[in-house]
Structure formats: C-alpha cells, structure tokens
C-alpha cells in the first residue's frame, strides 16, 4: 500500500492518456457486462422452459395461425399427453385512463404499460404449467367466466388490480381486434410462482380464454401456436417429427420444437445472438488489450531513466516489475469499476423507465439486471486486461540493465 501514492502520481503524469485508457477499458467492461446481462436474462427465460413441452407453429412464420382442426390430430400422436391452443394476443391498455377506458375508444393505446397476454385453452394449459400456482377457488371462477383472466402477482401489484376488477385490452394484431372496441376482462385469479423451484418463471403475464378471443372475433381466427405436453422428454425429437409429418402435405405445414428452442427463436434466434454478443465482446476486449498494452509500453519507454534510477536506489528487478504491473492493474481496476458502474446504471435505468421496462417485461426480460456473477466476471476481465497489458513492458523493465538504460538518457 505504501507504493499506491507513487503509482497514482504516475497515472496522473499524463492524465489525458490515462483518462482515455481508463475510458477505453470502461467501455469494454461496460459492453461486456451489459451484453452478458442481456444473455443472462435470455438464458434465465429459456431455463424457465420445460423439457416436456413442445410448441407447434406455422412452418412459414408465427404471423400465420394454424387451423383449429390440428388440435385433435396432434392429440392423437403417440407420446402426446395434452394440447392447448396458445395465441399471443399482443394487447395493450387503452391510453385514456388506466383500466377505466371507455369502451369503443380504440384510437390510442398505452404502450408504456405493455405486458404479455395470451389467449389459452385454460384447463390443459394450466395443467401443463405447474409453475403457475392459482388458488383452486379462483381458478374455478376463472373457468366459469368467459371474460375472466388470470394475472401474475407482479402485474396485479403494478396496476393495483385485485380479483373482481375489470380492464380493457386492445390488440395491435388486426385479426384480433373487435369492431366494437377493446376486449373487456375481469380479473378472476391471481397466480403466484414457486420462486425456489422456478426462479425464472414469469410473474408479469396475463392469460384469458381462447374461446373469448375466438367468439369475439367472429370465429375467424385459428391458433397462434399449440403448446404440447409430452409424456417423455427424451422423445421430444421423435414426437416433434411425428407432428410435423402429419401436416407435411397440408397448406399450413407446421414446425414443432421444444419450448426452449421456440423461445430462443422468438428472442431473435438467441443461440446465434449469444455467439454474436460474445464475439463482439471478445473483439472489443482484444482491441482494448492492444490499446492498453501500447499505453503501458509507451509509459514504460518514457520512464527508462526512472526505472534505472529505481534499480540504482535498490529496487530489485522484481519490485520494479511489480510496480509496472500494479500500475497496469490500477488502470484495469479504474476502468473495470467505471464500466461495471455504467452497466449497472444502464440496466437499472432500462428496468425502471416507464415504457422501456414494460417492453422488456412483454418479451420476458423483466429480470434484466447486472448479476453479481456478471459484475465479478467483468471485474476479472478488467484485471486480466490490465495484467496482460502490463506484463510485457514489465518484463522488459525486469530484464533491462541499469547501465544500458542510463546510457540512453
């Protein structure tokens, strides 16, 4: 510690260079932490998927619905336990007054309070999602009310909704819009999640009867997807192939995949996204390593005489090397701290800014946060960058002979 003031004074010697190096390092760590946080949030979402659930969708695009007649045919495939129609509704609250919008006013919608809402076949759907815990009496009330819905605990807390409250939603998807205005819903149940068994399960969603959507839209819509529960997760591939084979020669061919793969595909092909984000992070880290190494080399080259003086005064080569590495590590620590702080600030801002946080929640990324493990990893990367940048010039100083360095004065 007694060398710290000495190191700090050296860093202040050329403050422009030090500041730009620290900022470059901070940018690298900021990007690393932020990208990793996004990946962690996506992974958490994917981890919440069950291995024994498949999703069948239109082979061309999610934009196209599947015929309702497919339900029974899918149910007949060996290995299939349950099938539930599941349509992503894409509804949002009318902008007028939260939960009290006048029916018929569909000119504006409140995107800042967007949340995920799905039309589902209630009984099979909740039977295959044990993570959603609904009180039995509330669930019965929900089943008996066509306009009834089940909402997550966090959603209820956010809007102050309780059982019996009503609100309106209007979809931005044209086939899901009614002529006579937004859909009216009555909160009949509030679900909770077992955070121990299902730590990443979503608590911000709303589910309502598929039948309500079907009837209200004039029986003209199909099913967005079919959620399929299978008896043996190890047979997921075979069952998927069997389902798709059923509709291979039909107008609406299907693509069946595990729920995890489906969600990965839904979130911008997350598999490739991870590769892309990690690649970007690696490229940035390598660039910053070169920049910092160059900075340290220049700093050491400028100080050849001082290094000779230190050695003449009695500093061993190891101690001189240690000072240079410590200086580089200090750059890493400063850059790392700044980068982690910036990333923390950004993720906090995103998850606390009205509008943005709701969009994140809508795509299942409400848990976007800088996790301690990511911050620790970012700090380790900054230390590594500092060390790697300092070790070469430090070795050069270690090997240099006093007389050679003094002769170059």
């Amino acid at each position, binding site marked *: 510690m007694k060398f710290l*003031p000495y190191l700090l004074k050296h860093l202040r010697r050329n403050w422009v260079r030090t500041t730009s190096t620290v900022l470059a390092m901070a940018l690298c760590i900021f990007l690393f932490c932020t990208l990793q946080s996004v990946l962690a949030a996506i992974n958490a979402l994917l981890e919440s998927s069950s291995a024994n659930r498949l999703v069948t969708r239109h082979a061309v695009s999610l934009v196209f619905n599947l015929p309702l007649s497919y339900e029974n045919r899918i149910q007949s495939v060996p290995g299939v336990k349950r099938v539930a129609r599941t349509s992503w509704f894409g509804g949002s609250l009318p902008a007028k007054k939260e939960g009290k919008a006048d029916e018929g006013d569909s000119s504006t919608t409140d995107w800042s309070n967007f949340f995920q809402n799905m039309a589902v076949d209630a009984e099979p759907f909740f039977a295959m999602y044990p993570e959603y815990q609904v009180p039995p009496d509330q669930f019965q009330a929900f089943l008996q009310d066509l306009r009834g819905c089940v909402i997550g605990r966090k959603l209820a807390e956010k809007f102050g909704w309780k059982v019996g409250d009503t609100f309106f939603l209007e979809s931005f998807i044209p086939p899901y819009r009614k002529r006579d205005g937004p859909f009216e819903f009555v909160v009949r149940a509030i679900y909770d999640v077992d955070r121990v068994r299902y730590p990443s399960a979503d608590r911000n969603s709303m589910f309502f009867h598929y039948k309500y959507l079907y009837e209200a839209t004039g029986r003209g819509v199909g099913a967005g997807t079919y959620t399929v529960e299978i008896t043996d997760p190890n047979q997921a591939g075979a069952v998927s192939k069997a389902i798709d084979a059923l509709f291979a020669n039909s107008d609406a061919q299907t693509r069946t995949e595990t729920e995890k793969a489906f969600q990965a595909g839904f979130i911008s092909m997350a598999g490739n996204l991870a590769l892309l984000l990690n690649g970007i992070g690696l490229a940035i880290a390598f660039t910053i390593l070169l920049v910092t190494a160059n900075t340290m080399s220049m700093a050491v080259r400028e100080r050849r005489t001082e290094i000779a003086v230190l050695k003449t005064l009695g*500093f*061993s080569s190891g101690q001189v090397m240690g000072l240079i590495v410590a200086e580089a590590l200090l750059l890493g620590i400063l850059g790392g701290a700044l980068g982690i702080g910036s990333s923390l600030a950004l993720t906090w801002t995103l998850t606390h800014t009205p509008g943005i946080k709701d969009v994140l929640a809508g795509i299942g990324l409400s848990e976007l946060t800088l996790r301690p493990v990511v911050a620790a990893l970012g700090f380790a990367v900054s230390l590594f960058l500092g060390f790697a940048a300092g070790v070469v010039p430090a070795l050069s100083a270690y090997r240099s002979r006093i007389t050679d360095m003094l002769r170059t004065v």
Partner: protein
Amino acid sequence: MTSMVDVRDVRKVYRRDSQEVPVLDGIKLQVPEGEFVALMGPSGSGKTTLLNLIAGIDRPTSGQVIVAGTDVAQLSESALAQWRSHNIGFIFQFYNLIPVLNATENVELPLLLTSLSKKERRERATTALKVVGLADRAHHYPRQLSGGQEQRVAIARAIVTDPKVLVADEPTGDLDAKSAEEILQLIEVLNREHKKTIVMVTHDPRAATRAHTQHHLEKGVLKD
C-alpha cells in the same frame, strides 16, 4: 585505515555483436574509509564504468570489487539490489529526480524499501533536505527547482539511507559555476562532517582538487 573500496585486478569487456571492446584493463584501486577520491580522465577512458562497478550496478568481467567488505560480483541480482540500498548513495550528473514526485517524496523514495513507518520516512527525508539546505523547498516539484537545487535534492536522496559510500558521476557537469561550487562544498561537508567515503568522477580539474586523492584513467588503465 581499512579500505572501504578495494578494486582488485578488474577487467571489464563489453561485447558489441561479435566484437569485444575492453573498457577496463587490470584496474587496482583502494579507497580507505572516509576518503574523498576523484576519478578523472578523457571521455571513453572507463571512469564511469569503474564507478558503476563500485556502485554495484554493473559487474566486472574478471577480478573483484569489494565494497564495505562485500564482493559485489558474488551477489545475486536481488541481493545486490538490497546491498545497494544499504551501502551506496548514487549522485547522477543529470539529477534524475522523478518529475511527478515533490522534493520530499523523491528523497523518501529509497526509504520505501525499508520497514519504516510513513511518519519516520517523512522525518528522515526532511532531515536529509535540511542537511542539503532545502528544507524550505520540501514540497516543490523538480520543475520548480533550479539545477543546483535539483542536485541538492538528488544528494539528499543519496544520503537519506545513511549509506557508507557515495558515488557521484560528474555531479557538477550540468551546473553553472556558482551552483557547481555549492554542490562541491556540500559534498565536502558530507565527507568531512558525516564521514562518508566518496568516489567522484569528474572532467573538471577544479572539482577534482576538492578531493583528497585524484586518479587518472586512460584507455581503461589507471595511470596513478
């Protein structure tokens, strides 16, 4: 009187590519404790090389350099560094102060290698600055000092660990006549009152006259 410095039949050869360049050839020199010796000679005669050998910052090709009872050529790199910190005070021609440190911090630098507390280090640095007459410039940075003052700070740094031997490589070579005179007086005081053994390399015959003994080197050979 015992010898503080005993140079025994030292040869020093530098290698440049495949060529060998002899710099010192069979040097024998004894400097008694408390002596003030001047090494003179033309450029390239090997006087700085001899000084470096005595200071333990270079090693002889053959022969022995015994300083304060230690054969410096036999010490490992780290042991030699430690030995220098205890026994040698080095005064450079161009002062070589660390520009980002003020006078006190520059003087304190060698004490960072000791187990002294911060307070003790400050006290010793202040005392050393008092000895060289620069207590009032303790918080000045090298750029705020004149050449003579910078050299005084460098001398304070050289004596702060209370070394047995002071080696000075043309300590007045970069100074005007007045400042050079002050520095030479200070070196004399350190020799006379603080009993430091001093080996000084100089081109300046007037500076050399301040020493008790003068030795002349020519082409790597000690003439007298």
